[in-house]
């Protein structure tokens, strides 16, 4: 720690534990949102480190791309999956955690011992590299010495895109049917020409899980989705109609009586 400036040093010792804390949050947080926030924190702090070390462009990109774009994408996904959903963190393999911890610490100890035995030469700093501006210096490297690496990375990106399409995108194999197509099909087939009956409308309920009633008071099977029926999520119409009667009684607005009067 020979040439680290005072302010830089202070910043480092303040931010470094926080970035480690963020990383640990990522590992140990039960909820996905917390983990993502922890990771975002680490990313931002890393960006700050880069900036303090004179790599402004890299630091900004780090914050923009990783914290801004990538992490926000993660959060969107987490929200789609459900903020409340959390993975089971119960470890089923006996000794796995202990062993993982032990060997992780051992690796840490080994690398630290390696680094500790090292006497570093004095820092060069980025002044020379940044002589014509940080961005230009970086550009010179990317499009100069490292142009091949830069270009080959495109293969990686294309592969990733194609792979994502292949594993997640379901190709549309038939043209999408428009409303007119559906209508024509119903007429041609002569089944449910007027469309399927809509769900029932009750005094207090009006939803896809409330079946419509036929004139004889029985349930119209076609008015609710098969899926709901299979899941047993269809509401019992008895309680719905009972509620209607109760409601009518309380308001004294009975259709039957009216009918009777007229």
């Amino acid at each position, binding site marked *: 720690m020979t040439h680290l400036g005072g302010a830089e040093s202070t910043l480092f010792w303040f931010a470094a534990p926080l970035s480690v804390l963020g990383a640990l949050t990522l590992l140990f947080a039960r909820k996905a949102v917390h983990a993502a926030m922890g990771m975002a924190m680490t990313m931002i702090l890393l960006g700050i480190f880069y900036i303090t070390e004179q790599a402004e462009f890299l630091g900004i990109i780090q914050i923009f791309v990783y914290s801004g774009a990538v992490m926000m994408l993660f959060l969107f996904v987490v929200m789609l999956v459900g903020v409340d959903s959390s993975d089971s963190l119960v470890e089923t393999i006996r000794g796995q955690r202990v062993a993982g911890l032990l060997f992780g610490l051992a690796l840490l100890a*080994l*690398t630290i*011992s*390696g*680094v*500790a*035995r*090292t*006497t*570093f*030469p004095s820092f060069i700093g980025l002044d*020379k*590299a*940044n*002589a*014509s501006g940080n961005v*230009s*210096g970086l*550009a*010179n490297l990317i*499009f*100069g*010495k*490292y*142009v*091949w*690496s830069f270009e*080959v*990375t495109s*293969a*990686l990106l*294309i*592969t*990733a895109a*194609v*792979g994502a*399409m*292949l*594993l*997640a*995108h*379901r*190709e549309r*194999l*038939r043209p999408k049917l428009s409303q007119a197509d559906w209508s024509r099909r119903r007429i041609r087939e002569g089944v449910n020409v007027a469309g399927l009956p809509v769900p029932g409308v009750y005094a207090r309920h009006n939803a896809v899980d409330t079946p419509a009633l036929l004139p004889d008071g029985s349930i119209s099977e076609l008015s609710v989705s098969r899926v709901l029926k299979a899941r047993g999520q269809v509401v019992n119409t008895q309680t719905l109609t009972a509620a209607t009667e109760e409601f009518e009684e309380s308001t004294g607005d009975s259709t039957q009586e009216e009918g009777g009067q007229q």
Partner: protein
Amino acid sequence: MAADSFVQAHIDYGAVAPMLIVFGTAMVGILVEAFVPRASRFWVQLPLAIAGMVVSLVVLVTISRGHEVITAGGAVVIDAPALMLQGTVLVLSIIALLAMAEPLGTRSPDAFTQSGASVPGSPAEANAVRLGATSTEIFPLTMFAVGGMMLFPSASNLLVVFIALEVLSLPLYILTGLARRRRLLSQEASMKYFLLGAFSSAFFIFGAALIYGFAGSLDFDAINKAIGTNGGMDGLLAPGVLLVAVGLLFKAGAVPFHSWTPDVYQGAPTPVSGFMAACTKVAAFGALLRIFYVAFESLRWTWQPVLAIVALLTMVIGAVLSVVQTDIKRLLAYSSITHAGFVLVGLIALNTVGISGTLFYLAAYGFSIIAAFALVALVRSGGTEATHLSQWAGLGKTNPLLAGTFSFLLLAFAGIPLTSGFVAKFAIFSAAVGHGATWLAVVGMAMSAVTAFVYVKVIVLMYFSEPAEGTAVVTPSALTGISVAVGTVLTLLLGIIPAPLFEMTQHSTLFLR
């Protein structure tokens, strides 16, 4: 570093043309996916991919041979070993791709699911199959992988090595998850491969960072020059070297970084397992060769004993565990681990015999293993691949051609004379004895005896048991036919007249620095 002026990296296009052709073909393949009607994609993609690799090979042999340079700003080196390895990757990839493409009379590669995005066993999947969906994306993906494999052993800079590692790995992760049958197993394998691959990449990056800290450069030559001069920083160097080795040994499937191999080889579409076992090994060992012979050459007394122990463990664990396997793909996976151990024995010999033996071994093994996996893909039971050994019982009676060919390939793995396996093992072990690692040769011989026992067990099962119920062999098209025939004939030819290939490998031992 003069930052004020832009220096354009000179690229010798004659040297890198083979790689550019392969990558270019891959990108054209992506366009084909976008613009060619689904029904004709297969018959556009397959010839395109094959043509791309053949042209690349022709360019490699005719033009690139005259361009032995370090080019593209020190990123790529095209020298004799690189040309040899790239050529090997190309030839192996061509026959592997033929086996992967096997359509079995349909318009889609048979080993791959027609709808990777649908849930296994769902109506959407059945629908996709009925309507003739295809996964012809595998062709450009394979081409990207081949490109990565060609770059891997010719990279002359740790950064490029890492990018090449990812370029070759990412398509393989995807391909692994696309098996048509037993899809859950396949997806699980893909996930495992991806996670462990990321894990090993992390070690590699860590190691590369340590080395950069040590040498101030990622170029192999600069690293080698820095070793011995940067006193006081050795604490960074040795861990860096070994962590980089971990990343590469993972790809090569060496113990203790092998645990993904059986699961992935079992889950992946069978011809893809063959492709990985052959081509990935060539690329990974090629990169190991270059890194250890060029970048870390001065540090040999540090890494040589470590790699020797890794080689020992790899041979022993692979051989012993192959004894108890009951799934033919897992058996071949463990066998490939053992073979990785044998190759490591040659690699650490640190002499020209070792290099040429390693190169020979990789090529010889590649031809055999691609043919073997292509054959495994043909044995079916109840609509799915019959990979359990009990389903292979009596194949000698019901399908003598397949059983005979497979037995021959197994004998080659066992290293029986007059097969390429014997010559390859001989070269490797004589190199080991030549540099004083007799104990490795002794263990290697013992382990090859153990694995021979395993292979013979399979042969006995095929020939001496009553045929298993319900096992049938599908009749492949000429694609698999060519793939198997080339693999088998070369296995035989390299056993009888290995001299031509040997001469090639012997002229490919000089690394450009």
